[in-house]
């Protein structure tokens, strides 16, 4: 077993885990933060995307001990506690950018990361290219792309 310590959604957390424990398992099974999903478990679908020190990372392809001391944000920590939804979450709701919702947490975490890297004015081509690592099997992406463009703009005002 190995001791891990990190900050998740602003709170210091610790755990004693098998070295094989992936970050996504630590979040879901030890911290019970089940908003981060496991889709493909092969680093392709992006349902497990979280922010590690401000960068989008696939939590299924990272051991918990690799992010020792890091600052992690999951979908649960994106909006202020008891506050309104994060502008990107609100844009997904407003634009009906989900059907089953399974990919949505990863989509939103990736979308916020895209805005951080590419700015608040995103064209469709950029969004589609940047979403290469996030797979949705329901929507055909159309409303997701719309939501991200709207969410990016809304983040500038927030």
């Amino acid at each position: 077993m190995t001791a891990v310590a990190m900050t998740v959604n602003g709170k210091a957390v610790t755990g004693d885990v098998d070295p094989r424990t992936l970050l996504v398992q630590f979040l879901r099974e030890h911290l019970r933060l089940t908003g981060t999903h496991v889709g493909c478990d092969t680093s392709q679908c992006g349902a497990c995307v979280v922010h590690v020190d401000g960068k989008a990372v696939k939590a299924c392809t990272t051991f918990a001990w690799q992010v020792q001391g890091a600052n992690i944000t999951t979908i649960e920590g994106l909006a202020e506690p008891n506050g309104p939804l994060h502008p990107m979450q609100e844009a997904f709701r407003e634009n009906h950018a989900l059907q089953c919702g399974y990919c949505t947490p990863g989509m939103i975490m990736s979308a916020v990361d895209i805005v951080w890297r590419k700015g608040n004015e995103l064209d469709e081509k950029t969004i589609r290219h940047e979403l290469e690592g996030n797979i949705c099997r329901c929507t055909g992406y159309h409303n997701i792309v719309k939501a991200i463009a709207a969410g990016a703009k809304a983040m500038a005002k927030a």
Partner: protein
Amino acid sequence: MYEFKFHRPTTVRQAAGLLARQEEAKLLAGGHTLIPTMKLRLAGPKHIIDMSQIEGISGIEMKGRSLVIGALTRHVEVATSPIVKENIPALAELAGLIGDPAVRHRGTIGGSVANNDPNADYPAAVLGLGATVITNKRRIAADDFFKGLFETALEPDEIIVRFQFPKVNKAAYMKFPNPASRFALVGVFVSKRGSDIRVAVTGAGSNGVFRVTSFEEALKKRFGAKSLDGMTIPADGMSSDIHGSAEYRAHLVGVLARRAVAAATA
């Protein structure tokens, strides 16, 4: 996944010592090949030697006429580096085509080159730019480094610490990504540095990355896409799988080489 112990050395020397001492040990850099492979139980190292705590093996700088990139430098850093964009823009572009944004946040140049996946992008740049691979023991020319599928000249306790890329006059990389995995079905890197012309191909060869000497000879006469008009390579030695036949891959090598030269001379 099989059980393992992990180690977090803080120097290259400690890491090399662990590699030499421990049986079935593997280095972990970004982990975006090793961890998925371990999950599938295609790899079951007993010891994981994590490189993330080692100082001084990441970062990008110009030294004289060479671009020096540390082994632990992540794809996103190469893709967005003003130094790389100014000196070898084709290398920054190539790094920006690897995987997806989340993969580029973790994956490293050293990990990719040491793994020598036949469909990886970086081997094409290392060979196509005539880079030098600098390890804890020696300097290895790109032409001597790649030895076949997932095989390199690295000895069991040898660790890549950095790469030295010579600044070239012209270079470009053209990639035909597998639409599902985004790995290179075929990728061609071309460069011109004085009279040294290189055409390196990834994805196509059944033995990993290789140079196309016939194309290089043609480009020595004149470095332009027209010099490659009608030229092809034989399908012998090309990979063949559900993603593309050997003939298809051989055809793509010609098409992408012409496009790469056109981009390099544009």
